[in-house]
């Protein structure tokens, strides 16, 4: 792994006041955030929020109308020749000729890099040994994503941009992809991952950047973005008597739809015990219980003031 002395402190990627426009449409509006070395930074937001445009500027594919971006301490466009040998890119889709065989295309990308990975090892790493002789067009969507990830790893990257890496991937594939993202970060790579799947991102990210309508609404370590809230969330059946439950617990209870509820108090053992006994006495099921920290989806709603 190369040293990070040329980078801006400990950040592999620095985005400052970035603005990207397509004609009159502002895709990215003054975005600023950093992605630390050796950590996974998830860039989150719905489709069209500005994630891919931002990442494409970082990859050197697109020039910004305003602002400044630094990748491994270099400008992504003028420093492209220096960055490319150290960069891994996983596109949102495609990137491979449909008639190309898995083993051939991975071997080709490994060979294009002076310090590229061993192709056989890489095919094994993404769990595609049994499909190595297949052409791209015959792979499932999840398998194609894994090939794309392999191409991003071919360079033994110091910085990796993964655009929607788990989109359309089955459970086993998601485990593999999450594991690879974590391993890359553990090896000192700056991993920037764009996703609209918040639950998936929460499982792998050290840091989050929340986009909405081209603006960064919040960014920072996951633990600081997610609030430690005095709230207990549980899931049961719809239509339980929240007034009676509030009286029993001595705290307000708010329905959140689909059988989900929030109790306005800290999740102490006493509150949890009272809640579960109340549900048990009325034969209501308890499908989930979460006391303390909000999840990423709740945080996104709270911060952006809307649905994702």
């Amino acid at each position, binding site marked *: 792994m190369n040293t990070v002395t040329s980078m801006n402190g400990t950040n592999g990627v620095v985005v400052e006041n970035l603005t990207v426009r397509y004609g009159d449409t502002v895709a990215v509006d003054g975005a600023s955030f950093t992605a630390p070395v050796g950590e996974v930074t998830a860039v989150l937001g719905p489709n069209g929020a500005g994630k891919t445009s931002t990442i494409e500027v970082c*990859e*050197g*594919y697109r020039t910004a109308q305003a602002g400044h971006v630094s990748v491994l301490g270099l400008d992504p466009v003028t420093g492209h*020749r220096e960055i*490319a*040998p150290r*960069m891994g*890119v996983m*596109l949102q*889709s*495609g*990137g*491979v*000729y*449909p*008639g*190309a065989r898995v083993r*051939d295309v991975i071997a*080709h*990308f490994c*060979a*294009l*890099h*002076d310090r590229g990975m061993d192709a056989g090892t890489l095919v094994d790493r993404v769990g595609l040994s049994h499909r190595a002789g297949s052409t791209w067009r015959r792979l499932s969507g999840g398998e194609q994503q894994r090939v794309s990830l392999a*191409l991003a790893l071919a*360079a033994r990257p110091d910085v990796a941009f993964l655009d929607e890496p788990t989109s359309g991937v089955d459970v086993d594939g998601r485990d593999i992809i999450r594991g690879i993202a974590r391993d890359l970060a553990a090896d000192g790579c700056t991993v920037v991952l764009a996703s609209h799947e918040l639950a998936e991102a929460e499982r792998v990210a050290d840091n989050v950047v929340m986009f909405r309508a081209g603006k960064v609404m919040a960014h920072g370590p996951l633990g600081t973005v997610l609030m430690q809230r005095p709230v207990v969330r549980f899931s049961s059946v719809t239509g339980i008597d929240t007034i009676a439950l509030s009286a029993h617990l001595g705290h307000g209870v708010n329905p959140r739809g689909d059988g989900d509820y929030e109790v306005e108090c800290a999740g102490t053992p006493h509150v949890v015990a009272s809640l579960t006994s109340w549900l048990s006495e009325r034969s209501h099921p308890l499908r989930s219980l979460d006391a303390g920290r909000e999840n990423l989806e709740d945080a996104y709603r709270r911060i952006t003031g809307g649905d994702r």
Partner: protein
Amino acid sequence: MRRTLLQTRSEVSLVVRNGEQLLLTLVIPVMLLVFFSVVDVLPSGTQEPVDFLLPGIVALAVMSTAMVSLGIATGFERTYTVLKRLGATPLTRGELVTAKMLSVTAVEVLQLAILVPLGLLLGWRTGSGSAVLALPAVLLGTAAFSGIGLSLAGTLRGEINLAAQNGLYLVLLLLGGMVIPMSSLPGPLRAVCEYLPSSALADVLRDSLTGTGNRPGVSWVVLAVWAVLAPVTAARTFRWH
């Protein structure tokens, strides 16, 4: 250089493994050469059919590879974001373009290695021309047709590019003096078609290989102009992704 050769090998491998590309670059030229040499239906005048045909078929082979095959493959590479993905590797644009040129050249060498011996078997004999001039003619033709193919591939969407390349191939095949003599075309149409790159290439190849060019001086100029204008247009209009 190492990356250029790696990319060239990858490009050639994709062409050789693609049945449609082989049909276009090898099977159709061979079929046309054999059929019209054996079945004497073309108005080739007093010439033996194969003497008229071989230079035209070589021109057709160059057009098939440099324009249609390269153009269709590159167009789909844009559509499938292959070019975009390669752009994030150490392979530079210059190395990629060089690799594509070497790939086209390699396929053309293969085509000539099949067509010329086949022509000899069918009775083709060189005439009073200067055969050595066929080489710069093929190079100019390659530059001209590559420029046209990449101009279309770099601006049109995959399927539209596919249709445009095939449509242009058919028009130039019929009107470009490669298989059907220009003298068979109606006057006004002929006056226009003589300035097509296919007509110019077929004419200079006929002149150099058999000494039967129509107006080789003009054709060399026409071919040279296409060989400059088309690549310049491609370079200015090409969108990588």
